[in-house]
């Protein structure tokens, strides 16, 4: 999900509607199914799965970092997902394969509550800063990058030179 994370990152900073459209269309045109389908679903808010609670994310980072340094960092950054994404200790031993968005969505809809923390930690180990930020925003249900469902559909429709359908 590194490329999806890059898209979310760019969208979150880009104020212009047409520029957002171009970023999304570029992503959809260069990403295969089912990955881009899940991306469209995530952008339109159509995904439902068991969400991770902030308390769980806090517990994961507490196992891995100095509590004083975490508190100061959280104070500075001001957002839990972002702080955890930035501070998460890098695994240098072996290069891990980052999870695909489709793999994340599939696991989140089938995993039991008890298995979630370990799976999330494994994904975080394999992703970079932007990837971890996007993943944590997704699993905590805070994915907000200033894109309406309508705008995301317009970008997808542009792939086939079609107007987006009113409802789906």
């Amino acid at each position, binding site marked *: 999900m590194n490329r999806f994370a*890059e898209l979310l990152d*760019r969208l*979150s*900073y*880009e*104020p212009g509607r047409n*520029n957002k459209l*171009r*970023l999304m269309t*570029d992503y959809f045109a260069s990403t295969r199914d089912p990955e881009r389908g899940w991306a469209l679903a995530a952008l339109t808010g159509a995904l439902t799965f068991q969400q991770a609670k902030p308390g769980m994310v806090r517990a994961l980072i507490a196992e891995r*970092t*100095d509590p*004083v*340094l*975490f508190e*100061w*960092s959280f104070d*500075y*950054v*001001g*957002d839990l997902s*972002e*702080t955890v994404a*930035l*501070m998460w200790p*890098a695994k240098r031993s072996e290069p891990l394969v980052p999870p695909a968005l489709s793999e994340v969505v599939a696991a989140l809809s089938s995993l039991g509550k008890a298995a979630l923390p370990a799976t999330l930690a494994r994904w975080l180990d394999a992703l*970079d*800063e932007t990837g971890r930020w996007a993943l944590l925003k997704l699993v905590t249900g805070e994915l907000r990058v200033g894109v309406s469902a309508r705008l995301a559909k317009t970008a997808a429709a542009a792939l086939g030179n079609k107007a987006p359908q009113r409802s789906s």
Partner: protein
Amino acid sequence: MRPQDILLPTPNGVCCKLGGFHIDPTRPVERAVITHGHSDHARAGHGAVLATSETIDLMRLRYGEGFAGSAQPVRYGETVKLGDVKLTLHPAGHVLGSAQIALETNGLRIVASGDYKTMEDPTCAPFERLPCDVFITEATFALPVFRHGDPDAEIAKLLHSVALFPERAHLIGAYSLGKAQRVIALLRKAGYEKPIYLHGSMERITRYYQSRGIELGLLELARNATKAKLAGAIALCPPSVLHEPWSRRFFDPLTCFASGWMRVRARARQHRVELPLVISDHADWEGLTATILGTGAAEVWVTHGQEDALVHWSRAQGLRARPLNIIDYDGEEQDTDGKAPNSDSERP
């Protein structure tokens, strides 16, 4: 002999009484040893200045001939005796000419590292790790959230954006001394061969880098280019003019900012940046902590930045550590351009 008998922290910078000099003093003094040319470290008006020849040249470029009573250039590795103190300069990897200052007397060695980074930089000599008893470190990015990552990946992100928005100029805010030239060198390394456009205030320093043999390719001044020529171009300017009238010469410019602060989203938003580029001339958290351990110093003095976090970490490693609380070092906080922000602006 105790370390504080050699170097005494004062609010105006650290002072070496034995050798009769200050390091990077923030007020005019009789004799100053300067680590590098950024304006918060290299100020005009000292009686005598000792620094690398590049730092001296950069001070002269910025402040004019009368920047100090006298100036003594010292090469990396050359030893100078000042009073009872042996002083040597070593590369700090921060910007062209940047130096760490090693002081030795009675078998005790103190290293004042100034601003430094351990990451590779095609525009300056690489950081040298110096064994010492006391290490004085900066702390600009001393929180574990600051990891600068691979600058080449940031440049790739920029070039992807240039390809995706070929009609928009990519306007990159970058500090005029060091960062601007590094970004240009990184772009050239990535194979970008088109002319790169500069804000007028960057011209002299950038030409100076070129005169020192640093390849930066074809550079032009933005003010001499037509709006049509600037469409789709890459241009650099001091961060302070990103949203000034100067930027109106570009059609729908895409605002970028090359800085370690861009790692934090709130910081990027605060500057209304659309494409943050995490490229820093300071050590990140990993760089700071690995360097401290690498020097073997039993005592660490921490200055300008997030002192508390680095002092906390050092103590947890069993080291003696203290913050220096020197005032008036900006770090990367301000545009370290040597001038008031307004004087950067050219009229549109």
